């Protein structure tokens, strides 16, 4: 059923972006605020147990939007608490997001150094 996985990833991911577009168009939120809101919403929805079913249903449709970053932070913290107790509160989030965060810093840095901004016409 790989094909349905792709269909579900497409429409769920698309709808999450539509929520962002509505915020952008109707409330004049800046893109920075939208990214912050989505990550925080992802953390809270995951904690309430509402995001896990969406990830199981839509796969990348739920993990690729920034809410998915919040999801991995929250699941990381909760998992780490199970393993390490209270220390997990502080180690779990970044540990779970380590690959994405480090990739963003390193690839972001390299891209910013190598490329120059296009001159706006």
């Amino acid at each position, binding site marked *: 059923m790989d094909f349905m*996985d792709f269909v579900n*990833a497409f429409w*769920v*991911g*698309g709808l999450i*972006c*539509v929520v*962002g*577009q*509505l915020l*952008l*168009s*109707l409330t004049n939120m800046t*893109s*920075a605020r*939208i*990214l*912050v809101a*989505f*990550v*925080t919403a*992802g*953390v809270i929805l*995951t*904690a309430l*147990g509402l995001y896990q079913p969406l990830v199981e249903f*839509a796969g*990348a*449709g739920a*993990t690729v*939007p*920034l809410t*998915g*970053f919040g999801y*991995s*932070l*929250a699941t*990381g*913290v*909760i998992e780490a*608490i199970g393993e390490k107790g*209270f220390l997990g*509160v*502080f180690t779990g*989030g*970044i540990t*779970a997001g380590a*690959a*994405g965060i480090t*990739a*963003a810093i390193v*690839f*972001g*840095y390299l*891209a*910013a*150094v*190598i*490329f120059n*901004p296009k001159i706006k016409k």
Partner: protein
Amino acid sequence: MDINKSIKIKNYNEYVKQKMPKSKVFLDCIKAFFVGGAICTVGQGLRLLAQEVLLLDDKGTAAFVAMVLVFLGALFTGLGLYDVLGNFAGAGSIVPITGFANSIVSPAMEYKREGMVLGVGAKLFSIAGPVLVYGISASVLVGIVYFILHACGVATPL
């Protein structure tokens, strides 16, 4: 006749005023839907690749997808192509993790002339910083609540 006509025109103008911005919002949503959906579909393809070909576990798969998409987002931003996509797709290009990469590269590239430390190094985080601050703080808050509830023996959703 004339009065009727002018009322009709007035009504029509009001009608246009009501409809115009909405239909633009609607069109923007359609664009965001298709572009955002397409980026997530690419992510799903990467998931499949990670699971079936690279035989990674769940955590490895999530890490692999995040890394590849961040790399692509950074690369296309550097090439100036992501901004073109952004002008078309709005939130469809902001909300996916590729948009997060874009928000890191764009200001860093822009402020390069202010130096490698306070230009590139600091501006990398002008949007990613707040995202990490609020995301990580929220996750710590959730962790503390979860820890207390568990210590009290209360069942939690996760």
